[in-house]
C-alpha cells in the first residue's frame, strides 16, 4: 500500500473553488444555450472567484502560524492568503468589466481561461517548492497566452498571444534552468529545505538563484525583462490586459519575495542589490518610455513597468516594513490599474477603435463618472495625496530608507516626478481640449450606452483607491499579519 500524504483541503480550497468555476464554465460553453451562455459564465465565474476570496479569508484567519502542507509542496500562511484575496478580487472586477464586452465567440472559453489563470495564480502565491512553483507558473501563463490571442479576428491579438508565448516561454525556460541549478547544488526542492541545505558558496547555486530571479522578473515585467509588455498589453483584449497588469504582478511579486526570503536569506546581500538594480532599470525605462506613448494601453503598460520598479524597491528592502509596503502598495495599484483599464475598455467599446490620448479627449465631460474615476486613478498612480498610491509610495520609500538605501529614495522621487508628465497628460486629455473650444461639448448622437457592471467595477476601484488612503491602518494591519509569516 502506498502512503498517501495528508491533504489540507482548506489550504487548497481557494484554488479548488476557482477550478470548479473553470470546469463549470467550460461545460457551460458546450451545454448552455447560446443566448444565456454569457450570463451563465459570468455568474459562475463571479461565484467561483468570490468564493475563493472568502475561503482565502478563512485561511488567513486560521493560519497565524505558517505550516507546510501536502508534503511541503505548499505553504499555508497569511502571506499567500492575502495575495490570493487580492488576486480573486481583481478577478471579480475583471469579470464585471468584461461582462459587457460584446464578444460573440468563445464566451464560455474566455471565462474558463480567466478563472484558470486566476486559479493558477492563487496556487502560485502559496507554492512552497520549486516544482509546484513552476507548475503553477506554467498553469497561469498558458491560460494567459491563450487569453491574449482569443480575439482571433484581430491580428494584433494573435500577435500579442504569440509574442507572449515566445517570450514567456523563454522566461519560464530560464526559471526552470535556475531551479535545476539550485536543485543540483542543494539536492532540495522545498524553499525551506534549500535554505537549510545550502552549500552557499557554490557558484552554480548563486547562478541558479539569479536565473530564478530573472524568470520571475519576466512575469513582473521588470526592465530589462519587460520587452514583451507594451506589445502584449496593447494587443490583448483590454479586460485580459487589466487582469495581467494587476493580478500577474501580485502573484509574481509575492512569490518573488517569498522565495528570496525563504530560500535565499543568506544571499540577501547579492539579491537585494540585484533587485535594486532591476528596480532602477524599471523606473528609468518605464517612465521615460511612457512619456512618449500616445496609445493608452501602451502608456499603461509602461506605467506598469515603472510600478514594478517601485514594488521591487519594497522587495529590495528585505525587511518586514518592506513586505508590508509591498502588500499595501499592491492594493491601490490593483484598484487603479483595473479601474483605468475598465475606463479604457468603455471608451474602446464606445468608439470601436484603439484608445489614444487624442480619442480620450473630452471623456471627462461626456461621461462624468468614468472621467472622475480615471482622473483619480491617474492621481493615485502618480502618487498624489488623498489616494492610496501616495501612501504606498511613502511606505515603500520609508522602508527602503530604513534599510539604509537613501539613494533609492532619491531615484524613486525623481521617477515620480517624471511619471507626472504622462499621468497628467491623461488628465489633460480627459478634461482639457486643445484650442479655443471649452469643455462644454456633448458627444454627438446622444449619450453613449451605459454599462452598469463596468461602472460598478470602476466605482469599486475608486472606492478602494481613495479608501485605502483614509483607512490605511486596517489594511496595513492585515499586511503586517501577512508579513509575519515570512522569516525576517
Amino acid at each position, binding site marked *: 500500500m502506498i502512503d498517501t500524504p495528508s491533504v489540507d483541503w482548506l489550504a487548497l480550497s481557494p484554488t479548488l473553488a476557482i477550478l470548479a468555476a473553470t470546469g463549470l464554465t467550460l461545460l457551460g460553453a458546450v451545454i448552455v444555450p447560446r443566448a444565456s451562455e454569457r450570463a451563465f459564465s459570468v455568474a459562475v465565474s463571479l461565484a467561483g472567484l468570490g468564493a475563493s476570496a472568502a475561503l482565502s479569508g478563512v485561511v488567513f484567519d486560521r493560519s497565524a502560524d505558517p505550516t507546510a502542507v501536502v508534503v511541503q509542496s505548499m505553504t499555508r500562511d497569511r502571506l499567500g492568503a492575502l495575495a490570493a484575496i487580492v488576486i480573486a478580487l481583481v478577478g471579480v472586477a475583471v469579470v464585471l468589466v468584461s461582462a459587457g464586452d460584446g464578444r460573440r465567440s468563445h464566451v464560455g472559453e474566455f471565462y474558463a481561461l480567466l478563472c484558470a489563470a486566476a486559479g493558477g495564480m492563487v496556487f502560485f502565491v502559496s507554492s512552497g517548492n520549486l516544482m509546484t512553483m513552476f507548475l503553477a507558473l506554467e498553469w497561469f501563463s498558458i491560460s494567459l497566452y491563450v487569453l491574449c490571442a482569443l480575439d482571433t479576428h484581430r491580428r494584433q491579438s494573435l500577435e500579442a498571444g504569440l509574442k507572449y508565448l515566445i517570450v514567456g516561454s523563454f522566461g519560464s525556460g530560464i526559471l526552470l534552468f535556475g531551479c535545476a541549478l539550485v536543485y543540483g547544488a542543494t539536492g532540495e526542492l522545498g524553499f525551506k529545505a534549500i535554505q537549510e541545505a545550502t552549500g552557499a558558496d557554490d557558484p552554480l547555486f548563486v547562478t541558479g538563484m539569479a536565473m530564478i530571479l530573472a524568470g520571475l522578473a519576466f512575469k513582473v515585467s521588470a526592465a530589462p525583462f519587460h520587452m514583451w509588455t507594451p506589445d502584449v498589453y496593447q494587443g490583448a483584449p483590454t479586460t485580459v490586459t487589466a487582469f495581467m497588469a494587476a493580478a500577474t504582478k501580485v502573484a509574481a511579486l509575492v512569490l518573488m519575495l517569498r522565495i528570496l526570503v525563504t530560500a535565499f536569506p543568506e544571499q540577501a546581500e547579492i539579491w537585494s542589490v540585484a533587485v535594486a538594480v532591476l528596480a532602477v532599470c524599471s523606473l528609468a525605462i518605464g517612465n521615460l518610455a511612457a512619456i512618449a506613448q500616445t496609445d493608452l494601453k501602451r502608456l499603461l503598460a509602461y506605467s506598469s513597468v515603472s510600478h514594478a520598479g517601485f514594488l521591487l524597491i519594497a522587495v529590495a528592502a528585505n525587511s518586514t*516594513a518592506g513586505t*508590508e509596503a509591498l502588500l499595501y502598495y499592491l492594493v491601490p495599484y490593483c484598484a487603479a490599474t483595473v479601474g483605468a483599464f475598465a475606463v479604457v475598455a468603455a471608451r474602446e467599446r464606445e468608439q470601436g477603435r484603439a484608445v489614444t490620448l487624442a480619442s480620450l479627449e473630452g471623456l471627462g*465631460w461626456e461621461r462624468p463618472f468614468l472621467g472622475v474615476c480615471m482622473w483619480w486613478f491617474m*492621481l493615485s498612480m502618480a502618487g*498624489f*495625496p*488623498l489616494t492610496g498610491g*501616495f*501612501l504606498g509610495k*511613502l*511606505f515603500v*520609500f*520609508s522602508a527602503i*530608507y*530604513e534599510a539604509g538605501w*537613501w539613494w533609492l*529614495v*532619491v531615484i524613486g*522621487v*525623481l521617477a*515620480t*516626478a517624471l511619471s*507626472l*508628465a504622462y499621468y*497628467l497628460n491623461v*488628465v*489633460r486629455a480627459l*478634461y*482639457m481640449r*486643445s484650442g*479655443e473650444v*471649452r*469643455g*462644454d461639448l456633448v458627444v454627438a448622437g446622444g449619450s453613449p450606452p451605459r454599462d452598469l457592471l463596468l461602472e460598478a467595477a470602476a466605482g469599486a476601484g475608486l472606492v478602494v483607491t481613495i479608501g485605502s488612503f483614509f483607512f*490605511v*491602518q486596517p489594511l*496595513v494591519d492585515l499586511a*503586517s499579519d501577512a508579513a509575519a509569516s515570512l522569516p525576517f
Partner: protein
Amino acid sequence: MLTTLLIVVPLAGAILTWMLPLSRESTAGFALLVALAEVGLWLGSARNFDFGSDAQQYSANREWFDQLGISYAVGLYGFQYWLVGLAVVVGACAVGYGAWVGRENARAYFGLLLFLVGALVGVFAAQDLIVFYVFFEAMLIPIYVLVGVWGGPQRLKATVTFVIYTMVGSLLMLASIIAFGISQGTFLLSEIGTSSNDWIFLGFLAAFAVKAPLFPFHGWLRLAYTEAPPEVGAILSGVVSKAAVFGLVWIVLPHFPEPVEDFRTLVLALAAGTLAYGSILAFRQPDIRGVVAYSSMAQMGLIVLGIFAVNDLGLDGAVLHSVNHGLVSAGFFLLAGMIETRTGTGRFSELGGMAKGRPVLATLVLTLGMFTLAVPGSTNFAGEFAILSGVFDRGWGYAAVGAAAMVLAALYALRMISAILHERRGAAVREDAGDLVGNELMLLVPLVAILAVLTAWPAGITDRSFPADGGAAFIASQEGVSTP
C-alpha cells in the same frame, strides 16, 4: 475639533456641490453659502481663541498610520489663525466672483474651488509633516484643473509649467520629509525635534522657494497668474503662495536652526534679489495681471526677508504682511477680471481713461493701488516697516534693498493706476462700459474694509500672531526632542 470642522466644511461642500444636481445658479449659490458659512465658522472660532497662550488651540490628534508614526494632527496658533482667515475670506470672494460671472460646468467648477479652500485651510492648520504634505499636494489637484479647463488661451502651457515646477519642489520636500521623519520616528511637528542636516533643509527650502516663488524659481509664475481665471489667480497669488510662508515659519525655522544659521545669507540674498527683480519686472509689464503677478513675487521676497530675519519684528511683520498682501493681491486680481469683462483686455496700451464717469471703479483701483505701494500709514506700510526693521539687524544692505523696492513699488503702482484710469481713453474702453455694480462691490468692499481696519489697528494681528514673549522665542521653544 473646530479646526477639523474648518477643514471638512469646504471639502464636504465641494463633494456636495459636485454631486447635487442643481442648476448653474443654484450651484453657485450653494457654493457661496458654504464659503460664507466657512467664514462665519472662522470668525466664530475667534471667540475662545487664546492668542497669548503658547498652547495649540482647537487641536486634534488621531493615530492614522502607526507603522510610520503618522497621525492626523491639526491645530492652530495665532499666526496660523490669520493665515486660515486669509484663506477663507479670499476663498469666499473667489467663489462669489465665480458665481457672479457664471462659469461653464458650474458643479465641477465650484466643487473644485471649495476643494481648494479646504486644502488651503488644511495646509495652514497642519501639525504633522505628512498631513502638511498631503494638503500641500492636494492643492495642486484643483488648481491644475481649474487653470487647465477654465483658463485663458495659453492655459495648457500654464498648467504644465506650474505643475512641473511645484511638483519637483514638493517631491524634493517629500524625500526630506521621509528622511527627517523616519530618522526621528515621528512626523509630529511638536515631537520631531531638530535636524542639522543641510540636505534635508534644502529639500524643504526647494519646495517653498518654488511656491513663494523666490528668484530664480519663478518661471511658472507669469503664465499661471495670467492664464488662470481671475478668481483662481486671486487665490493663487493671495493665498497659495502663503503656504510657503507657513512652511518657512513653522517647519524650517524651528526644526532646522543650524542650517538656517548657515544658509541665512543665501536665503536673504535670494529674497532681496526676488524683491528687487520682481519690482523691476512689475514695472515693465504690459498688462494689469502681469504687474500684479510680479509685484506679488516681490512682496513674497519681502516676506521671506522678514521670516529669515528670525526676530520678533521680522516675524510679526511677515505675518501681517502676508495677510495684507493676500488681500491686496486678491483684490487686484478680481479687479483685473472686472476690467477685463468690460474691455476684453488687460493690456495698458488699450486701456486708459477709465476714471471718467466710473467713480467707484476709480476709487477702488486707487485705494488698492495705494495699499500696493504701501503708502505711509497703511497696514502694508506697517508690515513692510516691521520687516525692514527686523532684517536691519541682519545687515543694513537688505533693508536698503527693501527701501529701494518700496520706491519701485510706488513707480509700478502709479504707472498701473494711471494707465488704467487716466491718460487718453484707450481703444478697448468703450464709452458705455459701466462702472462697478453692486455685486462686484460686495466682493471688493469687504477686502478693502479689512485692509482699512488693519490700517487703523495693525497690532490686531502683530500682537496676536505669536505668544506673549515674541515670535523668535516661541519658534526657538519649538525644538521638541533634540537630536545629537
